[in-house]
């Protein structure tokens, strides 16, 4: 019996014609590339254009959100498991980095990387426990994670500083404040690029297709031979690692950690909202969502102070997205552009049953 690995080539297989799936419609692709280039340029140019350090630091916060929601999307987007507990992983990354600098005296960069590895390690038992349950149960387990961490880090004050907070010394003490911001802005941009790159790599891989099969129908994927649990665990650990890096970078940038903010359900909720808003099936979905929601949040905070108003606004936004754009903004935009694109192949839903039958008749020589 031949195996299913790709060493077997089907004998006499007709060379595959480059069907419509070989590329998205041409206009769509050009627009996508243009949008990505424009976005990258805007992100890179932003520090030069920011009128003051306050705006620049708001940019860092938004980039932090972008990295967090992209990291979240490794689990949420590929497998469809909605984690509200990712805030805990970011908090662990932050405290891990902070404690390794303050207590172990490690250089900042080493502390950041080591904290990431430690969180990845901790993510294994967490994933082991949480990924056994599906649907609403998974969401609840993930929330529990945040609450447990909050309790631990608040009460273990001798190490974590408890509610008084943990002050993390700056990695570049000689830099002036604007320079400090500028450096961290680019560090975050680099981390974002890395996270996007890895997501893209998985998206097009066999591993990624297996993960998407889990999202579609987990039992079916398992029946086809996909070790679903191992797949989920691996991608959860990858997601945790990126989330921890983002949290660690935040600790080094902001320099002051408080359990209430580090282990907050809100952080995880924002990640979910941003990813859903942009579209979890898209590489850039979480990024777009973070730009929209993050900017709105910063604007609200800047103009109205820290009121519960922005929470209401986010809640309403989430409701609207789920109701009117269940796949997020990016797919909605793409459909909009597709309407103006005359070169596009007719969409699947526009193929009528009669057309299908005709195609079928042709392909079977009119016998069916």
């Amino acid at each position, binding site marked *: 019996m031949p195996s299913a690995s*790709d060493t077997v*080539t089907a004998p006499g*297989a007709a060379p*595959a014609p480059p069907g419509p799936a070989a590329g998205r419609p041409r206009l769509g692709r050009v627009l996508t590339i243009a949008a990505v280039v424009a976005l990258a340029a805007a992100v890179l140019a932003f520090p030069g254009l920011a009128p003051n350090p306050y705006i620049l630091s708001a940019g860092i916060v938004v980039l932090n959100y972008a990295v967090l929601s992209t990291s979240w999307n490794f689990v949420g987007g590929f497998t469809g498991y909605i984690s509200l507990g990712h805030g805990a992983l970011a908090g662990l990354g932050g405290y891990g980095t902070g404690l390794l600098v303050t207590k172990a005296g490690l250089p900042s960069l080493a502390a950041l990387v080591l904290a990431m590895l430690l969180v990845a390690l901790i993510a294994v038992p967490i994933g082991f426990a949480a990924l056994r349950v599906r649907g609403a149960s998974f969401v609840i387990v993930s929330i529990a994670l945040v609450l447990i961490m909050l309790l631990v880090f608040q009460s273990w004050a001798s190490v974590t500083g408890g509610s008084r907070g943990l002050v993390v010394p700056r990695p570049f003490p000689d830099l002036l404040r604007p320079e400090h911001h500028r450096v961290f802005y680019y560090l975050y941009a680099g981390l974002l690029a890395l996270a996007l790159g890895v997501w893209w790599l998985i998206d097009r891989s*066999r591993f990624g*297709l297996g993960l998407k099969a889990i999202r579609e129908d987990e039992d079916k994927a398992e029946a*086809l*031979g996909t070790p679903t649990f191992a797949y989920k665990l691996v991608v959860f650990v990858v997601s945790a690692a990126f989330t921890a890096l983002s949290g660690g970078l935040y600790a080094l940038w902001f320099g002051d950690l408080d359990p209430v903010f580090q282990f907050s359900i809100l952080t995880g909720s924002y990640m979910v909202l941003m990813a859903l808003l942009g579209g979890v099936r898209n590489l850039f979905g979480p990024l777009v969502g973070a730009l929209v929601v993050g900017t709105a949040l910063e604007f609200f905070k800047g103009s109205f102070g820290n009121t519960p108003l922005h929470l209401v606004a986010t809640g309403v936004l989430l409701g609207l997205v789920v109701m009117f754009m269940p796949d997020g903004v990016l797919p909605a935009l793409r459909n909009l552009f597709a309407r103006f694109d005359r070169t596009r192949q007719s969409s699947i839903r526009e193929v009528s049953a009669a057309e299908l039958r005709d195609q079928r008749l042709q392909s079977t020589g009119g016998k069916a």
Partner: protein
Amino acid sequence: MTASLETTDLRKAFGGVTALDGATVRFRHGQVNALIGPNGSGKTTFFNCVTGMIRPDSGRTTYRGADITRKAPHAIARAGIGRTFQLCRVFPRMTALDNVLAAVRPGGVLGGLRGARSRAQTDRAREWLTRLGIEHLTDVEARNMSWGQQKLLELAGVLMADPETVLLDEPAGGVNPALLDRIGTLVRELNAEGRTFVIVEHNMDLVMSISDHIVVFDRGRPIAEGPPSMIRTDERVLGAYLGV
């Protein structure tokens, strides 16, 4: 002839309902086997226990001599047993091509990072779609396909994994007569190429015309087995199932 798939005294109860009540069955290698029986006689539960989707309360399953009773479904699939589901299951928001490609085993960690749409695999997937007559739907998402097309797609995916033994749960359920013929012919062809089949099916014409060996279930256990000619006239079968 060698036994391929063999169960010993499989039992499974759901609350008060006994679905499998000591099922001891042998399916031979290289044959087209049918598993028939009234609604609720435990056929689907039998498939679920054999493929690891449900854990039996007691009993044993062996495949080609190896005990697979407590193995995970993916491990059983990798051992060479593929299956379809009674209520046809495909990945609704994937194209037909991706549905079939999803059955490819990555081959290790590095293999997992290779592109899902490699030339070799895509060619193989297209070949299966062509063989099942749905190549014109290659880029259509499964959710936009008709019931019959989805059933063919499910089968294409299962076959892409290259199983030695294929369990089909009601392949003819809800499909038109022309398609029925196609499925029958396909099963015989695939069997001639060396694949063993176990088919749960209520359509007696299909069962009688394609199977070498028939096992009849009633209330969670086999009550008769033999070649079609024998089953057709077996009195217990007539009483329990054919309702004569």
